[in-house]
C-alpha cells in the first residue's frame, strides 16, 4: 500500500498528513485530523451524512480520497460557527425550526445548506429542497429541514428569510 503526504486547510487551519492511497477523505478527517462531526452513515454516497465542502462545493467525503484533497480548502460542520460560538445562520435556522432529532444526519445537512445559501448564492426553495433529497434523515420526516430550506432560500417569504440570505 503506497503512502502519500498531503497538505490541506481544514476549517481555516493548516494540516498535513501521511495517508494510504486508499484512505477516504472522510476517514482522514475523522481519524487523523479529529473532525468527528464528519459522520459516516453509508460509505457509498447515498445518505449524505459525511457531506463537507471542498473549495466551497458540497462533497461526500466518503466518496473522495484523502490524496485528492491535497492542497484543497475543506470546511466541516465544526468550522461554520463563529469563534465566539455564534451559530452560522444555517445552524441557527435549523435549531429554530427543530430540523434535527438524533443529529447524526445533521452535519451533512448543515454543510449542503451552507454551500447553497448565503452571500452571493441564489438558490430557490425548490432548488434547495431538491438538493436535500440527497440526504437521508431517519428521524424527523424532514419537516424542520423543509422549513429551514424555505427560510434559507432567496425566494423565501418574510423577515426570517434574511437570516440565511445575509450569511
Amino acid at each position, binding site marked *: 500500500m503506497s503512502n502519500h503526504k498531503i497538505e490541506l486547510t481544514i476549517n481555516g487551519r493548516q494540516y498535513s498528513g501521511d495517508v494510504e492511497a486508499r484512505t477516504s477523505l472522510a476517514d482522514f478527517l475523522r481519524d487523523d485530523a479529529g473532525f468527528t462531526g464528519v*459522520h*459516516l452513515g453509508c460509505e457509498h454516497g447515498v445518505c449524505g451524512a459525511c457531506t463537507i465542502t471542498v473549495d466551497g462545493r458540497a462533497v461526500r467525503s466518503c466518496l473522495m480520497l484523502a490524496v485528492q484533497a491535497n492542497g484543497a480548502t475543506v470546511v466541516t460542520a465544526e468550522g461554520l460557527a463563529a469563534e465566539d460560538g455564534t451559530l452560522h445562520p444555517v445552524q441557527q435556522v435549523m435549531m429554530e425550526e427543530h430540523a434535527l432529532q438524533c443529529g447524526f444526519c445533521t452535519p451533512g445537512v448543515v454543510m449542503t445548506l451552507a454551500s447553497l445559501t448565503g452571500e452571493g448564492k441564489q438558490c430557490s426553495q425548490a432548488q434547495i429542497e431538491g438538493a436535500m433529497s440527497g440526504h437521508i434523515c*431517519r428521524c424527523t420526516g424532514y419537516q424542520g429541514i423543509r422549513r429551514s430550506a424555505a427560510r434559507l432560500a432567496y425566494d423565501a417569504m418574510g423577515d426570517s428569510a434574511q437570516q440565511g440570505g445575509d450569511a
Partner: protein
Amino acid sequence: MTNMNAPEEKSAGILTGKYIGQRVHRKEDPRLLTGHGQFVDDVSVPGQLHVAFTRSPVARASIVSISSDYAREVPGVHAIYTQQDLADFNVDMISFFLASPDVKTTPLADGRVAYVGEPVVMVIADSRAIAEDAASLVEVEYAEETPLITIDDARHGAPVHPGREDNIAAQMGEEEIDEDLEALLQAAPHLVTHKVVHQRISQSPMETRGVLADPEGPKELTLYITCQSPHMVERWTSLALGKPDMAIRVIAKDVGGGFGLKNHPWKEEVAVILAALKFRRPLKWIEDRYENLIGANQAREQEMTLQVALDNDGKLLASHGDYSCNNGAFPQLSECNIAVHMFVWGAYKMPAYGFLTRGWYTNTVGYAAYRGPWAMESLVRETALDVAARRLGIDPIEIRRKNLVTLSEQPTESCMQIPLEDVTPAECLEKLLGYFDVDAFRREQAEAREQGRYLGLGIAAYIEPTGSAGAIATMTGELAQVRIEPTGKVTATMSTHSQGHGTQTTMAQIFADRLGVSYEDVSVFEGDSSRGGFSPGAAGSRQGVIAGGAAILAADKLAEKVRTLAAHLLQVEAAAIAIDAGQISVAGNPDKSISLGELANIAYGEPDRLPPGMESGLEAQHRYQPPPMTFASAANACVVEVDRDTGFVKIQRWISSEDCGTPLNPAVVEGQVSGGLAQAIGMVLLEEVGFDERGNPTAATYKDYMMPAISDIPTFEFVHANTPSQSVGGMRGVGEGGAIIGAPTLVNAIADALAPFGEVEVNLPLTPAKLLSVMEGRDLTPPKVVAPVAVEPVAPAPVAEPVPAADATPAGPVVIDGDWKMILSTPMGPQEMQGHFETSGDNLSGYLSSPEGQMEFTGSVVNGNNLVFDLKVTKPMKITLKYNLLIDGDKISGKCKMGIFGSAKLTGERL
C-alpha cells in the same frame, strides 16, 4: 410560570407554563449542529484495536473447516477468534425481558450457519481496514443445505434448528376456530376476509450499531455503545455474561437513532465484548451499512388474515385473526406478537374475537423490534374496515363512527379485557373532520376521475398503549434527581435516554417551570449507567410520560424545601414564598427577597442557619411509578393521487389529529409523530429487505433499500386533540404512533383512489408496478430473481409428521410423583419453573414454583399419564392457567391454556 408547585398526585389538566407546552429550542442542538455530538465512533481510548467479521455467504450450512492461515499473516493483525475461542464465557443471549433464548444462540457461528451475514470469525487488528483485509482472507468451507426463507417455507421445511420438532418459534391462541365464534362469523350478514402481507424492514438508524469495549482489569468494564438505554445494556450485559461481580459502566452520550434495534447488544456486540475481555485490550467495532443491512436484526415481515363479521348497517359482530411473523434464525425474542391481538379491536366495540398467532424460524437474520412492533393490528383492522365499507356501500367514516368506543361510553373494557377509561380515537376523528372538508374532497375526486385522474382519501384511527410500567420486569418507572447548585443553577440527572427524543430539552422545561428558574439555567444529564437509576430508556413510548412525571415530582419536592428554607430565613409563612427566574420573593413584602444561589449557598455551606432537622443541601429525587398503561389516540387522513400511467403515488396532504395529553414541547411531539409517519410512508411505498431463493439479501446498500427522502414526504398538518392522561403531568406517549397509524392511512388512500379498478391487495410495499398491475388488470411486477446455485446443496431430511403426544403410550409404569423441571413458552419468552406432583389414586396435588414464588394448584386429576390442573394467577392480569400435561418416562410435555392469551407449549424433564 411562577411557582405553583404544590405536590399533586393526579394531573389536573393539560399542563402549560413559561416553558412547558412551548416550542423551546433544544438543549441538544448546539453541539449536534456544530459536529460536536459524541457518537460511539467518536470515542477512542488509548490502546484500542479494531474488529472486523468474516460473515457467512450462505444461508444454511454446516461448517466443514475454518482456516485463518493467510489472514494471520497480514501485518497488523493481532488475533483471530472463532466461537471456540469464546466458548468459555458461556453467554446467555437473553431477551429484552431477560428470558433465555429458545434456541441455542452464540455470538459467533457454532458449527453451523443459519443466515447470510452470520458472523463466523472475528479479526482483531491495528485498524479497521487491516481487520477487513484479513477477514476477507479467512477461508471457511461450508456444506450447504437448502435454506428456508419465507414463512411459507418454514411451515413445510426441515427445522432450521436441528433437534427441534418444527419451525414454530412461538405460538398462542387456538389452532381451530372456536365453535361459537365460527357460528357467529358464518351467521353474519357480511363476512369480510382480509389479508395483509407486510414486508421485512431494516430499522436503519442513521448511526449503525457499534461498540467500544474497554476492560479495565478483570473486574471493571466500560462500554461505549450506541443503544436505547445504558442502564438496560448494563443490566443485560451483566446477566448475559454471568458477571455479577464485574463493575460494568455503559456510556452513550449521543445515539443516532435506535427505533427498536438497539434495545440491547446482540451477536456482534457480544463477540466484541468477550474478545476484549479475553484479549485484554480495548476493542472497537463499528458496523458499516452493508453489515447493517444484512447482519443487523430486522423487523416486521408478517402476514395476517382478519375475518370480520358485520351486520347490514356495518356494525361489528365478531372477528378472528390469524397472524404469522418471520422470526429469522436467532430472534432477539421468539415472538408471536400477542400484542397484535390484544389491541386489534382495542378501541372498537367488537363483541367476540379469537385468534391464532405464530412466529416462525427461517434461515434469515433474526427478528428485532421496530417502532410499534405490534402495528399490524392497526394496519389490518383499518384496511379491513375500508374493504368492508366499500363492500357494504357505507362511508368509511360512518363505519368507524358506528363502532369506535367514544369517551361517553367509558369506562369500559375491550373484547380482550383491556380497561378503557380515557381513549379518544372517536373524538380525534371528529376533530379531524372539523378540519378537513371531506365533502369538498369527494367532489374534487369525482371531477378528477372524469378526467382520468385518480385521487384517494385514506382515514384511520387507533389507540396506542404507552408509558407501560409495572407488569414486566424491565418496564419500570423512571428516576429524576435534581439539585440547585450553590451557583443557583439547576442540574438534573435522569434515567432517560435520547436517541433524538430531546429528553434533555423536555426535562429541562419541566425543571425550569417547576423550580422557577430560567430554562438556560438548567442542565440535564443522561446517557451513563453509572448515574441516575434503572430504566429501559426509549422503549414503548414511555419517557415523556414516566420521566416527565418523575421530573415534576422531584422538582416539587425540591421546591417545597426551597420554600421551607426561605420562609425560615426570611421569617415569613412558606405559603407567601414565590420563586421566579431564580429569585425568591415574598408576597406583599417586596423588601424581603433572596436569590436561589444565595439560598443554596446557605443550604450547603451554613448548616447552622437551617431549620432544625433539615438536611443540608438542595437536592431531591423521585422515582415515579405511573398507572400501568397510558393510552394515546389519533385519527389521521391523507390524500393521494395515483398516476394512471406510471403507478406512482403522490401524497398531496396529510393531517394528524392526535391526543398526546400534555405536549411538553409541541415541536418535539410533532417531530416524533412526523418521523414515525415518514417511516410508515417508507413501509407502504418504498422499503423492502428482500431475499432471493438462496437467502441472499437483495438490498444490501441504500441504492437498493429505498429509504424515504424529503421528496417522498409531504408536509404534515397537525390538529392537536389533547386530553390529559391520568399520570402526573397528564402526558401520553408519542414515540411510536406515527409509524403505526401512518401505514393504514396511506394504504386506505391508495385503495380509495384505485377503487374504480377493484381492490388493491395489501402486499407491502405498494410499488408502482403493483399499482399499475391493478389499473391495467394484469401482472406487471418484475419476475423474482433466481440465484444461480454453485454447489448442489444437501437437502435436509424432510420433517417427519410429529406423532401427536396424546397418542403416545408410555413404555413402562407411569411415575408421576416427584419434582420436574419445566419450561413454558409464553409471550414474554420461555419461563422456567419447577413442578412438584403427588398422586393418590386419581387425585393430584402439588405446586409449581418459579423465581416469582410458589403456587399450589387445585382441581386436579390424573388419568394414566395425563395430568390436568388449574392455577389462578393475578399478574400481569387475573387469569386461570389450565394445564394439560402428558408424562412419558422422564419427559413431560403438553399445553397450558392461558385465558385470552391462548395456549402455550410446555416441555420438561424429571429432576
